[in-house]
């Protein structure tokens, strides 16, 4: 596989760009592997990459029922930030953010990672206090976050309407300058390429239908739409379908799936410099490098795998966007879609071992796991390789719902991104 570089681009340009080789292989499944990862989203592919790169475990298959990167990785609005409240979460998301910062170079793949800043608006005295608390907590954890008054917020994002005459006037904002966006597909493709080069098998159109166990209870492999495949270690990293896969292994999990919608506008010239999110009015917005406004709505409240949501939710979001940014009132929306997000009771993910020997779980990232892609993959790889969690993901165990040590990020994750 050729590395991307200035000389390779020039050379291929002279060949009419016809000579590029495939970015990853499409192997037939083998009878068994050391490790099987279920789900070729960004998380599963990243885990495979780090297993190969950092733990020298290359006899790995990533099984995907559809095509790689076709799940929530393809449906999200790509907001990246790490300004979560609790120490455990700050460590987790900041671990991911630090990995993002060098990732395009490491993967030799342009992830279009852009640290344009994520600004979260406060619209009430309560929110002002809450966000200030976040700012202080984040700074104690070495996570950048700063409080802006209304004028400073307007300076940072000139389209923002700071009039006191709107339904929910802006009273200030918390800004994480290191936050931003990245190309969602690029991350999946970059990790797929990196993993495949190191010998990992990425097997698409291969749905896992059952999880096989030895007499002693430990896992022995999986039943798939392409036959039985053996493995002594299996990681479920299937986002919305993780609870079903856990059910196949006989385990119930604290996960529920809800619809989350997003939409994009027609492309326009660069007009919007950052990412803005607002919990109160349930909306967030950024502008992609293509020029489209990327807008996210709130989560529905009922369990659904439909991957589509009601129009009234989108209408509510767009009304809020138009009030916050009056210059967008005549923008045309081009596409609207829904994704199915797996949510835990405390809005924090589950990343660790399960009661079954050899079975690992990475799920419950809900509305906000894109930002965690490198970190989740890195920590899942560690957990699989060592058969023990890394200290960063140890608090995110499945057992916390029994011990009561919840990590309640409902406030930080209330707006869905």
């Amino acid at each position: 596989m050729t590395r991307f570089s200035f000389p390779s681009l020039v050379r291929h340009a002279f060949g009419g760009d016809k000579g590029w080789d495939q970015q990853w292989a499409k192997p037939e499944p083998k009878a068994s592997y050391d490790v099987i990862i279920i789900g070729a989203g960004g998380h599963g592919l990243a885990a495979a990459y780090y297993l190969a790169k950092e733990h020298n475990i290359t006899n790995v298959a990533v099984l995907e029922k559809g095509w790689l990167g076709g799940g929530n990785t393809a449906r999200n609005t790509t907001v990246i930030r790490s300004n979560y409240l609790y120490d455990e979460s700050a460590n987790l998301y900041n671990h991911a953010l630090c990995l993002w910062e060098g990732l395009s170079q490491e993967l030799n793949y342009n992830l279009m990672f852009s640290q344009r800043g994520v600004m979260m608006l406060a619209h009430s005295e309560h929110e002002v206090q809450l966000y200030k608390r976040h700012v202080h907590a984040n700074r104690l954890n070495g996570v950048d976050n700063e409080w802006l008054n209304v004028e400073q917020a307007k300076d940072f994002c000139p389209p923002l309407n700071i009039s006191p005459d709107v339904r929910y006037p802006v009273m200030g904002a918390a800004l994480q300058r290191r936050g931003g966006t990245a190309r969602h597909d690029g991350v999946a493709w970059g990790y797929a390429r990196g993993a495949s080069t190191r010998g990992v098998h990425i097997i698409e159109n291969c749905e896992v239908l059952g999880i096989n166990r030895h007499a002693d209870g430990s896992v022995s492999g999986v039943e798939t739409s392409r036959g039985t495949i053996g493995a002594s270690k299996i990681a479920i990293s299937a986002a919305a379908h993780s609870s079903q896969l856990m059910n196949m292994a006989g385990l119930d999990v604290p996960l529920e799936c809800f619809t989350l919608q997003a939409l994009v506008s027609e492309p326009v010239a660069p007009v919007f410099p950052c990412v803005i999110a607002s919990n109160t009015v349930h909306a967030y917005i950024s502008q992609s490098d293509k020029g489209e406004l990327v807008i996210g709505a709130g989560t529905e409240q009922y369990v659904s795998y439909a991957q589509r949501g009601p129009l009234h939710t989108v209408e509510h979001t767009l009304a809020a966007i138009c009030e916050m940014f009056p210059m967008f009132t005549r923008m045309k929306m081009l596409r609207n879609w829904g994704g199915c997000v797996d949510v835990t009771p405390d809005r924090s993910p589950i990343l660790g071992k399960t009661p079954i020997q050899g079975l690992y779980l990475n799920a419950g990232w809900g509305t906000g796991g894109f930002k965690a892609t490198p970190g989740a993959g890195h920590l899942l790889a560690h957990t699989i390789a060592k058969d023990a969690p890394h200290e960063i993901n140890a608090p995110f165990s499945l057992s916390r719902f029994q011990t009561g040590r919840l990590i309640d990020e409902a406030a930080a994750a209330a707006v869905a991104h």
Partner: protein
Amino acid sequence: MLLIDCPYCEQERAEIEFTCSGEAHMQKPQNADDAQWEKFLFLRANTKGVHYERWYHVHGCGRYFNAARDTISDKFLLTYKAGLPKPELPNE
């Protein structure tokens, strides 16, 4: 927008009059240990298919009722009053 048949109002009304209150038929355990509390408080069926759940007619009669809904199509199969056992589903 979903249309939801409130069994108390005996009327099909728009989704925005209701809120969903999660899985139905959850039994609060007596003298529970940690595992039973976990089951009651946190573990959910999350069914892909027919899901039994509670709905609240907040902008209507203000009462809770139960529904069986297909989570793949979001279609309501039936609704029934709170307190009734899980009903047989109608044959399609």
